[in-house]
């Protein structure tokens, strides 16, 4: 059963990779990268079950967190050409 | 009050993550929760927005409805993707949400994005700009049931 899930995830991974290679704009590639991140996170969870090592779930959590941080960091870089620009949100204290 | 509640939530999070109930790890968890609360205070991120305890009870009632809605829309979009003619008619829609607080607006914007077929492109206090995959999906976000439900969850004033 877990093998079936893993195979479906691999198919999704391959398709997302196709989009990442084709993608005409940088945003298409980022979207593909984000999807690949999600799929990889699920893959980690499935593999944890497949090999009977639930510690993999911690790795999946970390991967999910770093995925969103990474996507937003790259986005900010492409928007400003500068990671440190102030005010993506406003100042944290009112 | 927000600080105390954040501390409790963080400690519960630690216990659920850890699963080891040895004295040393329990103490380490308490210390970690306290340290994180202090760090968060230093970051100025603990307030009505960063830790919205006022919404917790009502949001638990909202999520099941949202998830049901997501499944419905995902089914529709899957049919569109798999149908040979690809029957899409993308639209951009502007409308004014009824929420008053930042958290409420964020919840609404994220709910729209989570439902396949609609994506919030811009979200401000006065106006949401939504991209819909089809005309019906795009029209569906204006004065929607979701809007009313999020406003109710928000329970602001």
């Amino acid at each position, binding site marked *: 059963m877990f093998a079936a899930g893993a195979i479906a995830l691999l198919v999704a991974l391959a398709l997302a990779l196709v989009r990442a290679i084709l993608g005409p704009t940088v945003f298409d590639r980022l979207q593909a990268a984000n999807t690949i991140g999600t799929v990889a996170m699920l893959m980690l969870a499935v593999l944890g079950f497949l090999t009977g090592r639930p510690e993999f779930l911690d790795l999946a959590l970390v991967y999910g967190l770093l995925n969103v941080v990474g996507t937003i960091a790259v986005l900010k870089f492409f928007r400003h050409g500068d990671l440190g*620009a102030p005010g*993506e*949100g*406003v*100042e944290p204290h009112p | 009050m927000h600080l105390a509640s954040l501390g409790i939530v963080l400690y519960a999070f630690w216990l659920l*993550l850890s699963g080891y109930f040895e004295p040393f790890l329990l103490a380490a968890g308490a210390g970690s929760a306290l340290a994180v609360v202090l760090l968060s205070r230093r970051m100025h991120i603990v307030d009505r927005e960063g830790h*919205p305890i006022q919404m917790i009870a009502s949001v638990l009632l909202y999520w099941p409805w949202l998830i049901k809605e997501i499944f419905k829309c995902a089914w529709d979009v899957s049919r569109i993707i798999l149908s040979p003619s690809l029957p899409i008619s993308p639209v951009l829609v502007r409308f004014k949400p009824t929420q008053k607080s930042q958290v409420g607006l964020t919840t609404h914007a994220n709910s729209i994005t989570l439902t396949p077929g609609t994506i919030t492109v811009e979200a401000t206090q006065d106006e949401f700009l939504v991209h819909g995959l089809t005309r019906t999906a795009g029209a569906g976000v204006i004065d929607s049931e979701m809007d009313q439900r999020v406003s109710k969850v928000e329970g602001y004033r």
Partner: protein
Amino acid sequence: MTRDLVLRVLGKVLIPFVLLFALYVQFHGDFGPGGGFQAGVITAAAVIFYAIIFGLPAARRFAPDRLVESMIAAGVLIYGGVGVFGILMGGNYLDYFVLAHDTVHGQERGIFWVEVGVAFTVSGVMTKVFYQFAERRRVVDEA
């Protein structure tokens, strides 16, 4: 640059949990995957996320350069301190066995403090690297 509501609220909600997760990884190094290095990286990721959302100046107010730099040094000092302490107690450099009455406890205690040192240094270095990288543009402009 307009204010981005969604990102700001997400950051405020998420960052405390990321920090706690880092500490969880730090303390459970001997039970599962993790340890000082990973904990340091996750802590730095939280600070970087904060800097991305609220801007570099806000992050610098939270973790000033001096603090970050002294964290790098403190981590190495803790690591070296454990080693030297081993010598003082009559063993070799980084000899854990002499740190407590029985060897297993000594081992545990020694590794714990070494991991603490690693976490400090790694999070400090990562944050500092990010600060330098984020500043790069402005320095180039001035030159």
